[in-house]
C-alpha cells in the first residue's frame, strides 16, 4: 500500500512539474436551452487529436502548451460546437450546446458522432437515455428506468413486477443505488411494480457492472448512479403526466436567471381514490417528491441541495396496514481550487424505514424498523494534462440500524413492548485513481480504495457455546461496548484497474479488474427483497463480502458510428457472500447471528450488445450467457447450488422508432431461461393431516422460460403555435401476446376451483403463479 502511494506520488509530482509552463482551458458544458450541466461531453483538441470528457458535474479542464487550437465539444443528441482559441494564458470557457433537433424521415447523422463506446476507458457501463425510456412501453404506462436496466446485458431480473435486479451473478442487495449520491435502500414502490425513480426528474443514469472506478465502493456487484436535473435556469417550465395508476407534475425555473434554479417534482398513485369511491376498505398508495435548488455563485463555486422523499402506504380494512419509505438529502459544494483542481464536497443523509400495524384489542401491535446513514464526502479531480487525470478523496459514513421495535397497541394486548438491539457502524474510505494515457492507443486507469469499516457500540455482542447452533442457541457470555467503542474493525484494500487499447479508429480492446467490498448486508433469505427486510452491518459475526472480477471486452463502432457493438466476458468470485441456514428464521430473531452462513459464489458469463443511438430507429439488442453458483457451508448440505437468480440465457431487445412528427413507436422483447427453483422429490402426510414435501436439492429445477413482448405508441398532436403547451399521448400494451410467465411455483393438496380438496386429499399438485396478462394503458402528458 505504502509503495503504491509513493509511486503514485512520484508520478503525480512528475506530471505536476512537467505541467509548469503550460496553460489550462477549463469550464462547464451546458445545455443551451435550460442551462443543465452536461456530463460526459467529449472535449477534443483537434490539433493534438486528444481530449478530455466533462466530469459528473459538467466540468472539464485541459492543460496544453500555449498555442492556437481548435476545440470541438460533442455530445450525443446535441450539435457539435467548434471553437478556435488562442491559448496564451489560462482560459475559462463555458460552453452551451444546443440540442440537435432530429430531422425526421431523414436519417442523416449530423455533426460528429462520439465514439465514446470505443475510446472511453470505461467498460461494463451502460448509460440510459431518459428520453428513450419515456418512449418505451411501460407497465401501466409508468416509465421506469429500473425496468430498462433489467434489460441491459449482464443484468437479470427476477421475473416481472419487481424492482430488483441482479448484476453479473450478484444478488439484489449487492447493487449500490444512488440518487444524487445518496444511497436508496429500497428502490421499490408497490412491492416493486414501480421503482422510486420518477422519470421526470432524471437527468442521467449510469450502471457500472465492472471496472468500477475507485470513487465508488460499498457494494459488490454494481453501482447505479442516478443524477437528477438541476432545473431550467433560463425560463419557467412545467410538465404533467396523467397515467392509469399515477400522475405526476414537475415545475422548474430560474430563481435568478442563469445563476440559480429550482426543480420540484411530485408523483402520486391514485388507485386508492378509485378504491375509496368503490367503497373498498383496502387502500394502497405511493408518492415521490423530489426537490432541488442549485446556485452558481461564480465559476469557482456551485451549490446544490437535493432532497427526495417517497413512501408507500397500504391498509387492509381497519385491521392491518403497513408502510415504508426512503428519504434522502444531498448538499453539494463544487469548488475549483485552481483551473485544474476540481473538488466536490457532499453532505449526504439517507434513511429507510418501514412499519406494520395490526389493529386488534388483544393482538394489536405496531412494529417499526429503520436505518439511517450520514456521510461526508470529499472528492477531487485533478486534470494534470490531457494524458493524466487524477481522482482522489475521502468518504466517511455513520450508520445506524434499528432492526425492529414492537409496541403493543393497547394495554390489553398480549404482547409486551420489545426492541431489538440497535447496531452502529463507521465506514471510512480513502481512494485514489489515475487515468493515464500512455500512448495514443493505450490508456490505463489504476487506483485503489482503502476501506476501514468499524462496527461500533453502543451494543452487546453475545458469545455462544456454538455460534452456528440456530436450534437452541446457548449464550455463554456478553461483551458490552460503549458508544462509539469499536466492536470489530475490518480493513480492506480494493485495487481497481482498467485499460483500453485502440485496435484502430473504430475498435478497441478493454480489460479490467476490480475488487469490491460490501459491509452492509441484507437480512433476507428470499429471492426478491421485500421492504420488510432489514439490513445489518459487518460486525462481530458477519464478515465483509468481497468480490474480485476480471472482465475483457471488444468494442467496435460500425457504419460511421451509427452502431455500437461490444462483447464482454467476465469472471467473478465472491467470498463471504451472506446467506442463511436452511430454515433460517430471519424475522425478529434475537439470536440472528446464529442463522448467518457465509460462503463462496462464482459467476461467469458473456454479454453481447448491439446498440443504435442515432436516427429514427434507435434501440439495442442484448444477449447474456451466464452462470452463477454458490457453495455455502450449512446451506443445501454444503453442496454447490445454482443461485436463485441464475439465468443461462437472457435476450432483450428494445427499440423506438420515430415514424413522423406525430407518431413514434416503441417495442420491447425479453426472453430468459426459467428461474431455478426448489421442487419436491416426494411427499408425506404428517400430524393432523398436514401434507409436507420432501426436499432434496435447492434450486434443482427450472421454471418455464420467461418471454414477453411490449408495445407502445406515442402521439404528439401538432401543437398550435398560439398555445403555450404541448401535449402527448402514450399508449402501451404490456405483454402483447399475453404469455403466462412464471413468477413462482408452490405445491398444495389438489383442489378444485372453489378451493375444496379433491377426493381423499392424497393427490398433490404444483401451482404456477403468474402476474400480468395483456395490459393496455394510456398516459397523457402536458408540457407547459
Amino acid at each position, binding site marked *: 500500500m505504502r509503495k503504491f502511494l509513493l509511486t503514485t506520488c512520484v508520478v503525480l509530482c512528475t506530471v505536476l512539474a512537467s505541467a509548469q509552463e503550460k496553460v489550462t482551458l477549463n469550464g462547464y458544458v451546458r445545455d443551451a436551452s435550460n442551462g443543465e450541466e452536461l456530463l460526459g461531453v467529449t472535449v477534443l483538441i483537434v490539433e493534438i487529436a486528444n481530449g478530455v470528457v466533462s466530469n459528473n458535474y459538467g466540468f472539464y479542464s485541459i492543460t496544453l502548451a500555449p498555442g492556437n487550437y481548435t476545440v470541438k465539444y460533442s455530445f450525443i443528441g446535441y450539435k457539435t460546437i467548434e471553437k478556435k482559441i488562442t491559448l496564451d494564458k489560462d482560459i475559462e470557457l463555458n460552453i452551451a450546446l444546443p440540442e440537435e433537433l432530429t430531422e425526421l424521415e431523414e436519417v442523416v447523422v449530423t455533426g460528429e458522432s462520439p465514439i465514446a463506446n470505443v475510446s472511453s476507458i470505461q467498460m461494463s457501463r451502460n448509460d440510459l437515455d431518459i428520453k428513450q425510456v419515456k418512449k418505451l412501453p411501460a407497465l401501466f404506462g409508468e416509465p421506469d428506468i429500473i425496468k430498462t436496466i433489467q434489460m441491459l446485458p449482464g443484468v437479470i431480473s427476477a421475473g416481472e413486477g419487481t424492482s430488483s435486479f441482479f448484476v453479473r451473478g450478484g444478488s439484489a442487495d449487492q447493487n449500490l443505488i444512488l440518487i444524487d449520491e445518496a444511497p436508496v435502500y429500497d428502490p421499490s414502490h408497490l*412491492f416493486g411494480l414501480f421503482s422510486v425513480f420518477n422519470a421526470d426528474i432524471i437527468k442521467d443514469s449510469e450502471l457500472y457492472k465492472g471496472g468500477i472506478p475507485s470513487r465508488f465502493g460499498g457494494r459488490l456487484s454494481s453501482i447505479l448512479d442516478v443524477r437528477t436535473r438541476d432545473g431550467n435556469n433560463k425560463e419557467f417550465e412545467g410538465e404533467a403526466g396523467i397515467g392509469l395508476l399515477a400522475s405526476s407534475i414537475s415545475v422548474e425555473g430560474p430563481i435568478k436567471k442563469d445563476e440559480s434554479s429550482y426543480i420540484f417534482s411530485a408523483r402520486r398513485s391514485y388507485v386508492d381514490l378509485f378504491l375509496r369511491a368503490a367503497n373498498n376498505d383496502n387502500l394502497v398508495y405511493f408518492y415521490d417528491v423530489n426537490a432541488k435548488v442549485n446556485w452558481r455563485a461564480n465559476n469557482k463555486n456551485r451549490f446544490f441541495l437535493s432532497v427526495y422523499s417517497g413512501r408507500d402506504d397500504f391498509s387492509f380494512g381497519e385491521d392491518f396496514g403497513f408502510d415504508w419509505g426512503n428519504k434522502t438529502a444531498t448538499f453539494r459544494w463544487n469548488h475549483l481550487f485552481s483551473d485544474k483542481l476540481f473538488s466536490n464536497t457532499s453532505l449526504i443523509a439517507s434513511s429507510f424505514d418501514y412499519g406494520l400495524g395490526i389493529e386488534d384489542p388483544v393482538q394489536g401491535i405496531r412494529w417499526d424498523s429503520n436505518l439511517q446513514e450520514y456521510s461526508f464526502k470529499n472528492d477531487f479531480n485533478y486534470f494534470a494534462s490531457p494524458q493524466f487525470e487524477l481522482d482522489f478523496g475521502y468518504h466517511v459514513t455513520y450508520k445506524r440500524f434499528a432492526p425492529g421495535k414492537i409496541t403493543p397497541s393497547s394495554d390489553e394486548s398480549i404482547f409486551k413492548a420489545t426492541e431489538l438491539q440497535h447496531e452502529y457502524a463507521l465506514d471510512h474510505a480513502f481512494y485514489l485513481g489515475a487515468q493515464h494515457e500512455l500512448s495514443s492507443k493505450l490508456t490505463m486507469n489504476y487506483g485503489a480504495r482503502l476501506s476501514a469499516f468499524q462496527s461500533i457500540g453502543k451494543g452487546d455482542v453475545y458469545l455462544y457455546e456454538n455460534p452456528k447452533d440456530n436450534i437452541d442457541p446457548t449464550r455463554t457470555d456478553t461483551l458490552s461496548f460503549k458508544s462509539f467503542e469499536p466492536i470489530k474493525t475490518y480493513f480492506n484494500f480494493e485495487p481497481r484497474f482498467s485499460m483500453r487499447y485502440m485496435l484502430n479508429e473504430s475498435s478497441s480492446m478493454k480489460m479490467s479488474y476490480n475488487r469490491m467490498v460490501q459491509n452492509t448486508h441484507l437480512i433476507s433469505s428470499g429471492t426478491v427483497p421485500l421492504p420488510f427486510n432489514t439490513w445489518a452491518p459487518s460486525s462481530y459475526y458477519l464478515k465483509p463480502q468481497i468480490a474480485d472480477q476480471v472482465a475483457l471486452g471488444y468494442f467496435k463502432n460500425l457504419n460511421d458510428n451509427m452502431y455500437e457493438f461490444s462483447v464482454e466476458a467476465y469472471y467473478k468470485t465472491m467470498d463471504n457472500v451472506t446467506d442463511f441456514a*436452511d430454515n433460517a428464521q*430471519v*424475522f425478529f430473531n434475537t439470536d440472528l447471528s446464529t442463522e448467518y452462513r457465509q460462503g463462496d459464489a462464482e459467476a461467469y458469463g458473456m454479454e453481447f450488445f448491439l446498440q443504435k443511438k442515432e436516427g429514427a430507429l434507435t434501440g439495442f439488442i442484448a444477449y447474456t450467457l451466464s452462470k452463477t453458483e454458490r457453495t455455502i457451508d450449512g446451506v443445501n448440505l454444503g453442496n454447490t447450488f445454482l443461485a436463485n437468480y441464475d439465468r443461462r440465457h437472457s435476450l432483450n431487445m428494445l427499440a423506438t422508432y420515430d415514424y413522423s412528427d406525430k407518431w413514434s413507436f416503441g417495442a420491447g422483447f425479453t426472453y430468459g431461461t426459467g428461474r431455478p427453483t426448489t421442487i419436491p422429490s416426494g411427499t408425506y402426510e404428517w400430524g393432523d393431516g398436514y401434507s409436507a*414435501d420432501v426436499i432434496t436439492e435447492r434450486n434443482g429445477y427450472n421454471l418455464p422460460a420467461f418471454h414477453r413482448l411490449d408495445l407502445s405508441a406515442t402521439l404528439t398532436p401538432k401543437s398550435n403555435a398560439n398555445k403555450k403547451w404541448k401535449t402527448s399521448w402514450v399508449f402501451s400494451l404490456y405483454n402483447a401476446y399475453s404469455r403466462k410467465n412464471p413468477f413462482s411455483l408452490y405445491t*398444495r393438496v389438489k383442489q378444485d376451483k372453489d378451493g375444496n380438496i379433491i377426493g381423499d386429499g392424497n393427490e398433490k399438485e404444483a401451482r404456477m403463479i403468474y402476474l400480468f396478462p395483456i395490459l393496455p394503458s394510456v398516459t397523457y402528458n402536458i408540457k407547459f
Partner: protein
Amino acid sequence: MKNLYKYILFSLTVFFVSCEETIDIDTITSEPKVVIDGVLTNNSELNFIKLSYTRGFYSLDPNPAITDAVVTVTDDADNEVVYLHNPNNDPSKKGYYYPQTPYAGNIWTTYRLKVTVDGVDYTASETMLPVTEIDSLTVIIDEEEMEDPDEEGEFYEVLFYAKEPQDRVDHYLFKFYKNGLTLRDFEGDIYFADDDFLGESISGVPTAGYYKLGQYAKVEMYSITREAFIYYNDLSNLLNNDGGMFTPPPANPRTNLSNGAFGYFQVSAVDIMEIEIKDPN
C-alpha cells in the same frame, strides 16, 4: 410473530391479484424415507407412534404404512415400554403403534424413542415440560361473520384466556376441535407460539374458526420443547412456502429424529378444555 409474516404474505397475494394454474413438473422421486409421527403426553388417550414411508409427489395413495417395525420408548429411569403394531387390529389404524397398556407420561421426564425398520435404528429423545393452564374459554358473536356467515348460524367465536408465566421459557402448540373434529382456518395452519414477546395476560385471543350454537369447542394446549417449536415453525414455513420468491426456499424441517427420518417425536404435557357454544347474551 409468525402471524405477522403470514399477514404480509397474504397481503402480497391480495395485492398482486395474481393468477395461477396447475402445471406438471418432472419430479425425480427420491428413495422412500421413514416418516415418524410420535406423540407422548401426560394424557394416555392422546399417545401413539405412527410409522410410514414418504411417497412420490404425484402418487395417489397415502403414505405406505410400516407395520413390522420394532418400537420402544424408554424413560430416564430406564423403564422400557414396547409398542405394538395396531394391537386391536383396527383397519383405520394401520401403521399405528400403541403400548400394550396405555400410560401417561410425567413432566420433567426425558423419553427416548427407538424405532427399528429393516435393521435401521431411528431414535429421538425429548423431555416433557410443564404446561400453562387454560383459564377459560368464552364465546362471542363475530359481528362481521354474522353479516355473511359461511354456514347458516355459524358466527360464534371462541376466545381463549390464560396467564403466561413470565419466569420461565415456554413454547406452546394449540389444537382446536369442533365437535371432536380438527378445526383450522387454513389447510397449512399450525397454531404454535413462543413466549418471547408475550406478556403475562393472555386474555381474549380468538381461536380458529366459527361455531354454531350447540356445537362443542375443544382446545388442547401442549407444552413443547424449543426443538419442537423449531420443528413446527419449519413445517409451517414448508407448508406455506411460495417457492422461494419472497419466502425462504423450501427446506425439510429440522427434527429430533436421527438417521434422516422425517417427522417428529413430540413429548408434551397437555391441558384440555371443552365448552358448549351458548349465546353469550
